[in-house]
């Protein structure tokens, strides 16, 4: 290398020697805490069921990791009916208001393209279920 490029090179690495470890440490510090959640393969879901009113309940699904399948559909199954809640396409918290859910409800996550079940999670009202 010629002298100007040697100088740039040294300056760049002195800068990166500070920047990269800082970002690395910061990224580790802001990592979400480990959560007790249901695991399916590499994907991680957690969910809660709460009463909202006398006639409605709220299903909250927390997708902690990127969903492996691009067609993950959430279906709420009760002994009397099945309701499609929506699709889960990226990490985040999904909230669905549904008619009052009786005991024995199950949250089914299905791969709509491959037509197979990803996971079935039994829901119990007012609990943090999902193990």
């Amino acid at each position: 290398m010629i002298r100007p490029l040697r100088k740039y090179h040294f300056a760049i690495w002195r800068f990166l020697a500070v920047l990269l470890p800082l970002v690395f440490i910061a990224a580790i510090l802001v990592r979400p805490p480990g959560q007790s959640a249901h695991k399916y393969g590499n994907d991680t879901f957690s969910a809660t069921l709460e009463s909202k009113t006398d006639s409605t309940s709220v299903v909250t699904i927390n997708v902690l990791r990127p969903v492996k399948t691009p067609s993950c559909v959430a279906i709420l199954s009760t002994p009397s009916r099945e309701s499609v809640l929506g699709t889960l396409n990226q990490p985040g918290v999904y909230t669905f208001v549904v008619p009052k859910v009786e005991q024995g409800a199950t949250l089914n996550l299905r791969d709509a393209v491959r037509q197979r079940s990803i996971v079935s999670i039994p829901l119990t009202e007012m609990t943090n279920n999902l193990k």
Partner: protein
Amino acid sequence: MSASYRPVLWNRQKKIYDLVITLFVVLYLGVFISVTKFVNEDATEETLIIRSTGTLAILMLHVILMIGPLARLNKSFLPLLYNRRHFGVIMFFIAATHGVFSIIQFHALGNINPILSLFLSNTHYNSLSKFPFEVFGFFALIILFLMAATSHDFWLHNLGPRIWKSLHMMVYVAYTLLIFHIVLGVIQYETSPVLTVLLGTGMITIITLHIITGKREHEIDGSELEGVHQFQKVCPVDFIPNNRARVVNFGSERIAIFRYDNKISAISNVCKHQNGPLGEGKVVDGCITCPWHGYQYLPNNGCSPPPFQERVATYDVKIVDGEVWINPVAYPEGTERPPAMISMIE
């Protein structure tokens, strides 16, 4: 070195180099996919491809970034430098496979443009832990593409070594973006510490190697000999190993003083090909040979042997009482200068 352009000037060394890289790539992908499938039966083919190519590409980039400083610290690493561009191009294709499959898997099945989706599907740009890390990978891939596309000597010749080398120093930007891509991406979700430890170790190793070599070069640049218009004493003749050089620093650039066949000659330390350090090379078959890619120059006139046309500057040298003296005023590139004869003095 070549008098004309060809896609690749294959020789035995390049074939061996590329064969070793290809075998390593195949072995790595095979082992990674087999182990992952064994540990996690539910992993889909797409996931296996994305993860195996992603980890392989970042591993290869670490090795590529280590070759330069390692070759400066220890000449036994020079063979790795010889065909580093092929290494880089193969790494780009592996990284591109990772990028393309990731976009198809996570962004191509919606109703908006996949590239647009990459920027808009996650809008937590104000959050560190939820930041859309894919964006960093996308821009890193663009840089790696530009580098792979301009890696051929055609571009080196037309852009000139300085611009070409500056462009290819963008690899440090790409590396920074990829570190961001990983630490804000998979490391946010990965529960095992293995990947974090491996990445941290690789990153610290690369930084340390570049800082050590950069500091060493900086010290050499700082030890400039005084007086630029008259002969300057350099060192005793015996301090220069036979067929090797001693590099001295005058004014804006370095000069390589070679000892060969009981003679002493001095030429610019900067190779015309990629600005490689000629003074770290040796005299092979009567020609000074660049340690980076084997470009050759005659010691007495700085010209490449015919039919090649590269030329570097030459300098006057003399030997007085067993000491080498040099006049740091450069002659035009390719100017014949008589070598100082060691045998006549001793």
